[in-house]
């Protein structure tokens, strides 16, 4: 027989509870009563049913403590422990939800809180999506409408992108591993600019794979930005919180990820018009500039017209003057001509006079120039005759 101390027993009790697999991770539903809050903010209450009760404590800041109220039917999660100083068995509650939430909901809330605390959902770590993706990686089931919806939207909006499908199971126990592998494959391949993790609508159970912790961490660790498009618009999974962007549906994801060719074409057309307008106005400016220079040039030049007219006037004056000069000369020439005519020896000759030339052709003007017996020429108007001088008489 061994006598243990009280402390030894209570320690044993506490340690037994804490090492018990069930008691250290327990879901309990029941009704709340005797709710009171201490000054420190912790909540103390009992959780009871028809025949039994558990003494509970919920420390300040735990998920759902606002649900606590007397008479409320709740689902809880926590662990059983033995509080040695008072010798009481306590249910330490870390999560409370209204009854009917179900184990999955509680599980969801638990993981959500935990990962949020770790920072997996932080806005600051969410990466921007590429504006013009070249390759889109799609993690989804190859059967089903999801892939088809995505490719239809992408083909319509932005056909120059390539799609790389990384197939996976999207529900069931094997799904989480599959999804993790699929995301990893795309990261290893490296060509994708963005990844879409997509699944059609379903119940909480059917979407459950996307609430898996491994899947969440795989999305968080993806080097390539991830867009989640899981279930319907009202479905939110842990994957949605971790992703760089959540889309309400797979089609919506496709619309968010790629630009619309219609808008792009309109923009291109606008740029084209802009360029044309700029060039037109450039050419217009140049033309106007040339006009101005032309105007300046014209003004800087002397007035040719004036010169022309001056020349015309001058030449007319010249003409008049010359004409006058010419007339004068003509008059003089005429009178000279007449004088010449009278002085013309031929006319004298014609009157009967002759010119006497000696044998050397010199004209004999005087009686003294004549030698007897010499040969002389008598020049008539119409010819000459050679004569010999006979007698000289005075």
């Amino acid at each position: 027989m061994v006598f243990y101390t009280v402390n030894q027993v209570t320690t044993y009790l506490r340690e037994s509870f804490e090492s018990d697999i069930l008691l250290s991770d327990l879901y309990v539903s029941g009704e709340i009563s005797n709710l009171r809050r201490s000054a420190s903010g912790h909540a103390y209450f009992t959780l009871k049913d028809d025949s039994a009760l558990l003494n509970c404590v919920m420390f300040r800041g735990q998920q759902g403590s606002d649900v606590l109220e007397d008479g409320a039917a709740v689902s809880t999660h926590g662990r059983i422990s033995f509080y040695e100083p008072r010798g009481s068995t306590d249910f330490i509650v870390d999560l409370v939800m209204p009854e009917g939430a179900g184990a999955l909901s509680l599980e969801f809330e638990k993981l959500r809180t935990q990962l949020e605390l770790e920072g997996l959902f932080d806005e600051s770590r969410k990466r921007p999506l590429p504006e013009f993706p070249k390759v889109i990686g799609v993690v989804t089931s190859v059967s089903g409408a999801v892939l088809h919806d995505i490719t239809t939207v992408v083909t319509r909006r932005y056909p120059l992108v390539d799609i790389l499908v990384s197939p996976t199971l999207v529900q069931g126990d094997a799904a989480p591993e599959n999804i993790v592998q699929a995301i990893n494959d795309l990261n290893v391949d490296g060509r994708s600019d963005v990844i879409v993790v997509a699944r059609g609508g379903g119940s909480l159970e059917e979407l459950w794979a996307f609430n898996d912790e491994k899947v969440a961490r795989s999305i968080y660790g993806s080097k390539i930005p991830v867009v989640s498009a899981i279930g319907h618009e009202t479905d939110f999974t842990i994957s949605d919180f971790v992703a760089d962007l959540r889309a309400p549906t797979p089609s919506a994801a496709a619309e968010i990820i790629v630009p619309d060719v219609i808008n792009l074409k309109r923009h291109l057309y606008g740029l084209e018009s802009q360029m044309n307008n700029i060039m037109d106005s450039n050419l217009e400016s140049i033309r106007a500039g040339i006009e101005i220079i032309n105007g300046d040039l014209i003004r800087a030049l002397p007035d040719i017209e004036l010169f022309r007219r001056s020349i015309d006037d001058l030449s007319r004056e010249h003409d008049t003057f010359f004409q006058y000069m010419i007339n004068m000369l003509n008059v003089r020439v005429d009178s000279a001509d007449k004088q010449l005519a009278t002085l013309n020896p031929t006319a004298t000759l014609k009157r009967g006079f002759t010119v006497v030339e000696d044998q050397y052709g010199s004209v004999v003007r005087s009686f003294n120039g004549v030698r007897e017996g010499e040969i002389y020429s008598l020049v008539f108007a119409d010819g000459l005759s050679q004569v010999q001088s006979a007698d000289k008489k005075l």
Partner: protein
Amino acid sequence: MIDKSFDEIPDDITALAFEEAFKLLGEVVSSLEEGGLALKDSVELYKKGMMLTKHCNDLLNKVQIDITNIKEQFEES
């Protein structure tokens, strides 16, 4: 801004991906808007701009997207 040497505009515009061509086009238009270019240079830029526009439109006129299954690729290699 594209300076007069047009270094950033490659000779083979048709080899550019959409994003690059589209961004380059934006810069060309900005440069033209800013003005101050000699006529010869602005005409050159304008021509390049038109070629970029055509290339972008050509890319957008693609009709079908290419879809590949990554698993099949792995199996092939």
